[in-house]
């Protein structure tokens, strides 16, 4: 099951929200959340996938052990943290990247039993024990609170990586009223539109542009930009839906996907994508560096390599991660401060070219394809400049492309929202007009998403 499935947002979500209102107590709301998460997690899969949640018991005892030994100054705390890392790494590789074990029968699982969201689940588990080890949060003595944090379906698929210390106050006490539901619904619908309406547009352009039967100059550029666009809008959409779901249940999750920007150079661009995960990884690896420049640089490289492995346990992901890590280390310790003084246009060109060339390696599983595409970027080996397929893919979806562009460009989006706000402040009537327009727009987007998803199934 996914957030964009009709059965989820027209079935499970309304029922779950309705049931959670039957009692005001936070314990009851946590109970409903756990039940809904179990249903979401095991839908159309064997109930045995819920055995993954048994790791919560291990996390609970490891957390208590780390806390006790840390206070006593015992090195056993490090040992327990390492054990937790190994356990979560095992869950991560076996469940999230099971294709690595295709030839090992004992570990190879069929697609039907692979639990969804195992990657984020394992990060969540390790982040809890890490925070207990570093003293950022105390070990939880109520296992049901920890269970609520670990199994919550809100951020099962696309994050954000919420730390236990940030979520604990909401787990213990939260209120859900009309305002929270309203904000949550708005956010959910926005995310749904990104995933259902915008991401498929970029997928079509990607497939038209990155076509080895018809290699063109503009197709190579547009295709790769569309590859990034598809990944961004799909994951950002899922993350927005997660924030909306959380808001409807009284949780306030951090922003996980910022608009791509060249402000922080390449490092800033990488940090704007899956912000909470990057932040956690940087925190862990920077802790290993501890002030020494050379060691910190190595840790930066390792951090981004590990981050890319998290996305895909494949050779090309590892190589791209190492390359990105080297660039991030160079920016931090060599030329970053000098480059910051350049005009914004120069920084933009630098980030655009470097990110396209380096991150484009994620798309290809062989150096052959990657090299072929790199040469096509400068016109080598291309049949012509622009193919009919790419032209049609762009023109047929130009309105959605413009909307997508506006949504991620702050220098267009901010003046528009500021103009609407200033108009709304003129009078109560003007404010009403602005609000009604927003409501009509959201309703139209919701209907479009429902029709699009239903049309995919109505074959």
């Amino acid at each position, binding site marked *: *099951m996914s957030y964009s499935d*009709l*059965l989820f947002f027209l*079935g499970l979500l*309304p029922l779950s929200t309705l049931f959670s209102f039957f009692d005001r107590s936070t314990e009851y709301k946590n109970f409903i959340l756990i039940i809904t998460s179990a249903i979401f997690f095991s*839908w*159309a899969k*064997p*109930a045995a996938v819920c055995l993954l949640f048994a790791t919560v018991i291990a996390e609970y005892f490891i957390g208590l052990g780390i806390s006790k030994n840390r206070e006593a100054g015992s090195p056993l705390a490090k040992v327990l943290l390492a054990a937790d890392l190994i356990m979560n790494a095992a869950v991560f590789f076996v469940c999230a990247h099971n294709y690595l074990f295709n030839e090992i029968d004992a570990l190879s699982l069929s697609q*039907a039993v692979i639990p969804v969201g195992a990657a984020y689940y394992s990060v969540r588990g390790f982040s809890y024990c890490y925070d207990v080890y570093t003293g950022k949060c105390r070990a939880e003595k109520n296992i049901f609170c920890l269970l609520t944090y670990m199994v919550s379906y809100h951020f099962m698929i696309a994050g954000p990586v919420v730390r236990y210390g940030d979520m604990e106050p909401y787990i213990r006490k939260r209120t859900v009223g*009309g*305002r929270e539901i*309203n904000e949550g*619904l*708005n956010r959910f*619908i926005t995310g749904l539109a990104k995933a259902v309406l915008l991401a*498929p*547009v970029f997928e079509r352009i990607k*497939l*038209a542009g*990155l*076509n*080895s*039967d*018809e290699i063109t100059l503009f197709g190579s550029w547009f295709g790769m930009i569309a590859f990034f666009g598809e990944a961004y809008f799909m994951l950002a959409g899922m993350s927005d839906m997660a924030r909306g779901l959380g808001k409807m249940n009284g949780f306030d999750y951090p922003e996980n996907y910022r608009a791509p920007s060249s402000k922080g150079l390449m490092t800033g661009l990488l940090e704007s994508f899956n912000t909470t995960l990057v932040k956690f990884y940087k925190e862990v690896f920077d802790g290993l560096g501890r002030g020494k420049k050379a060691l910190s640089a190595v840790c930066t490289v390792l951090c981004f390599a590990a981050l890319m492995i998290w996305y895909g346990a494949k050779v090309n992901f590892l190589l791209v991660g190492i390359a990105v890590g080297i660039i991030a280390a160079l920016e931090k310790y060599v030329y970053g401060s000098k480059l910051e003084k350049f005009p914004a246009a120069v920084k933009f060109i630098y980030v655009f070219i470097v990110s396209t060339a380096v991150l484009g390696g994620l*798309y*290809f*599983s*062989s150096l*052959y*394809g990657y090299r*072929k595409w790199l040469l096509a970027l400068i016109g080598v080996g291309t049949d012509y400049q622009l193919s*009919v397929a790419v*032209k*049609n*893919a762009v*023109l*047929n*979806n*130009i*309105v*959605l492309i413009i909307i997508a562009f506006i949504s991620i460009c702050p220098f267009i989006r901010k003046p528009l929202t500021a103009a609407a706000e200033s108009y709304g402040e003129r009078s*109560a009537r003007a*404010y*009403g007009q602005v*609000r*009604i327009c*927003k*409501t009509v727009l*959201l*309703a139209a987007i*919701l*209907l479009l998403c*429902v*029709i699009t998803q239903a*049309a*995919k*199934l*109505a*074959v």
Partner: protein
Amino acid sequence: MESNIRNIALDAGEENGYAVPEECAESEKAIGELNKENLKAQYDFINLITLVFIFLCAAAVFIIFTSSKRYGDEGNKFSLERLVSGEYTAEIQSRYESSLPFPKQIRWLEERVSLIYGIGNTISDSEGVKEQGGEEMPNSFDEPEQNRHEEKSVTTTTAEEKKTQTKKPEETAPVYKTTYKRTTEETTTTTEETTTVTTTNNDAPQVNTTVTVPPTTEKKTSAATTTTTTKKQTTTSATTTTTSASTTSASEQVSDESSENEAMEE
């Protein structure tokens, strides 16, 4: 004591030296903020009601107007074993997705709506396939045996079929050739395989085929059978270009009418 009590007339404040203080500017500001908050709450409520209404209407339409029962009937009986194994919920999902109400109307609506997404979108035919310049799903830059995207396995097949058809115009596409040689029952099977090839993300490939009929030894019966089969296969080929559902129904027609012919001949 009582003499100390004086009635103070507010109207005569100035005459008595008591100035009535003017309203504080900050209190006006606070009142303005409160009014804004109230206004915001009102429109938040309208927004919430509107969106919840749409959610509930859509949910109700997709539950009430179904073409088949989903829960608890013989095909999907509830049992603890089936629930634990995931079969029960998988069947519910499958039935929900396959029994959406008004499928033709939804597709019609989706095609009309997608006209506003850009320039040059057209609606192809009554079967409802949208043309987008006749583009097909391409391969990646990677060599074919290293293709790693799921849709590419589909597009590769489609592209190969099309390539086969363009290079050898007198031959049918592999699936249709096989279809012809088989009995009508096999025709149906082949068509079902075609159905599984088509993904929900891709548009149905534009496939034009010609069916050639080799001569057979049995003149009367086989000729009749051949004639019937040929005619129907042409129909099958044409409709395959549109949607897989159409293909299935056409092949069912083929199998029904061919079996009727065979029965009559017997």
